[in-house]
């Protein structure tokens, strides 16, 4: 038995994916902020599964590239592929969402994965934000080509990310937890390069 497991009275402490990382960019045009814990699900399935989820959550499921649907409860359904969506919601919504999705998808071929703790969410904001992200991302991030609400899976240098434009000058970047230090360091350097 390991020392950790053997030590009595030790309490499990929650550490976010950015714990211990300094998010200060030391740049004037771009800031980084932890998006905080939230509920995340990855849905794979066909048209019937998408229809069922859309009806259960009263969301107009995005059916085309870059599409995203949001509601007043803070839920967001991001199109990632013709048979793949990512659902992001407030953390305390997780149990209710699981119940609703399980009921809606019961008889339908699908894969539903809770990735709440797999991902790290980062809010990148500022007048130079698109240029900083473009340091590692090949997409055209002009506001006309990638407007507010647009989302897609793409690359940030060596990290696979989901990029979602939440405001004209702000993006949410979702990446896998272990890539958080890499993504932060890359964006800090890119942010300083804009000054």
């Amino acid at each position: 038995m390991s020392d950790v497991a053997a030590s009595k009275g030790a309490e499990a402490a929650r550490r976010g994916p950015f714990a211990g990382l300094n998010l200060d960019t030391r740049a004037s045009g771009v800031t980084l902020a932890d998006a905080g814990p939230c509920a995340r699900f990855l849905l794979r399935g066909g048209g019937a599964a998408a229809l069922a989820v859309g009806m259960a959550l009263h969301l107009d499921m995005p059916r085309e590239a870059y599409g995203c649907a949001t509601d007043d409860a803070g839920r967001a359904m991001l199109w990632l592929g013709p048979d793949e969506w990512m659902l992001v919601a407030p953390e305390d919504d997780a149990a209710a969402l699981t119940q609703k999705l399980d009921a809606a998808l019961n008889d339908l071929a699908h894969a539903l994965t809770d990735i709440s703790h797999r991902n790290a969410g980062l809010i990148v904001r500022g007048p130079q934000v698109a240029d900083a992200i473009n340091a590692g991302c090949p997409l055209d991030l002009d506001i006309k080509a990638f407007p507010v609400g647009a989302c897609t899976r793409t690359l940030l240098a060596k990290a696979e990310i989901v990029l979602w434009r939440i405001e004209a000058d702000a993006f949410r970047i979702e990446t896998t937890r272990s890539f958080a230090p890499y993504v932060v360091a890359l964006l800090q350097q890119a942010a300083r390069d804009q000054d």
Partner: protein
Amino acid sequence: MLLILCPYCGPRAEIEFRCGGESHIERPGPYSEVDDGAWADYLFTRKNPKGEHRERWLHAAGCRQWFNVARDTVSHTILAVYPMGKTRPPTEAGT
């Protein structure tokens, strides 16, 4: 750097994709009638043309879908993009 027209996402940079090699390779069969030569051909022999080539691509860091591309191996021009399972549409190059 190629700009590849994903049938689902539109034009995207090559680094988001993986190339899966030549398209439209049919597995020989039935098994009992396939000799070693035909099987080796199926596994290893590829066209490697100078000119138009049909190949499979995966939008790995995107929509994660496979699709077919007709690409000129000399000029890198992409002549056609079409879904998996579809027969080879003709291109202007005519193969």
